[in-house]
């Protein structure tokens, strides 16, 4: 850092020129801006869902709709979705570990943690696919809602439309995240980041992956819990 960016009192003059005021690498800043726009998209979806729920007198009970666990007979509400949630939390943790390993240029640890993250992501998407197949067999799809409201009245297809659209959009993000992580893994194995002496790309992929996890926190709460 050149001396002109530091004032006499030793404070850094962020707006004095020569340095980025946000003190973040360009690509990372742009990833953050992309995530803001993506947050607004997801926010619009979820708020639209909330608006519809507030405008509807009754709504299906998620504990009665999402109560199946593959391989088990009987009704287990919340169990399957909690498994999915924990898978995503764990894959988020391994992604943090990959980013930190990248910061200390530890190629082996980056590879291990990226592989674990990809496996976690694939497990999550697989779980979601199973859930969609199950719901489809029950007769639920876009425009079709076999479930009754909690008070026994007929429910509108709004419920299934929102569920499939929002979890589908989230699942699409997870799939994209897996693809990005696979590309990062290939680049790591090829030694691209070693040549650059910087694993910053992993940090950007990590931001995206954590955002996907963050969105799931909201989707999970809005659809399954409340």
């Amino acid at each position, binding site marked *: 850092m050149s001396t002109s960016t530091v004032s006499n009192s030793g404070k850094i003059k962020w707006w004095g020129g020569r340095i980025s005021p946000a003190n973040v690498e360009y690509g990372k800043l742009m990833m953050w801006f992309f995530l803001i726009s993506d947050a607004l998209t997801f926010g619009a979806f979820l708020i639209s869902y909330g608006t519809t729920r507030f405008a509807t007198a009754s709504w299906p009970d998620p504990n009665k709709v999402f109560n199946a666990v593959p391989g088990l007979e009987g009704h287990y509400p*919340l169990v399957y979705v909690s498994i999915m949630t924990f898978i995503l*939390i764990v894959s988020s943790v391994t992604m943090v570990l990959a980013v930190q390993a990248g910061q200390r240029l530890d190629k082996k640890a980056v590879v291990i943690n990226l592989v674990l993250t990809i496996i976690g992501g694939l497990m999550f998407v697989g779980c979601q696919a199973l859930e969609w197949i199950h719901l489809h067999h029950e*007769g639920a799809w876009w425009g079709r809602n076999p*479930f009754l409201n909690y008070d026994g*009245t*007929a429910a509108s297809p709004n419920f299934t439309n929102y569920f499939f659209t929002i979890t589908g959009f989230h699942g699409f993000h997870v799939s994209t995240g897996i693809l990005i992580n696979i590309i990062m893994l290939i680049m790591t194995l090829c030694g691209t980041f070693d040549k650059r002496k910087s694993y910053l790309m992993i940090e950007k992929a990590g931001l995206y992956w954590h955002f996907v996890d*963050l969105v799931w926190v*909201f989707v999970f*709460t809005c659809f399954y819990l409340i």
Partner: protein
Amino acid sequence: MENIEYSEAKRSSLKKEVIKVTVILTVVTIIELIMGFIMMDWAEGSFKRHLFKGIIIILMLAKAYYIVAHFMHLGHENKIMKRLIVVPLLIFIWFIIAFLADGHSYLELRSKYDPYSVEMNEKVLPAEHGQHQDAEHHEAEQE
């Protein structure tokens, strides 16, 4: 851009942070799930159910804070970067309040001026044919 020297102390402090946040996220999720199981049998629209839903939303925001601040590292960026990200998202405060109020007002208006929708809302269907609404019977009733 930044070439951080990774001392053992820094590495272990980072590791501690990851473990701490993981434990917090896991515990909060378990609390949410327990609350979900407890409120399962409570009547929809009752006060205690609304209270639990409110607590779950607060816990959800706490989880979001930990993910953004620690996993996404925003808590360690400088003040300008934090404001750059957080200030645009403040639009959600307006967004949520305005649209939920709009939905609620639509429900109120319909219940006042659209008796048909009220009747539909109160019509309990037999569990077997949930999809099929008995339209003809309904029209006859309305006459």
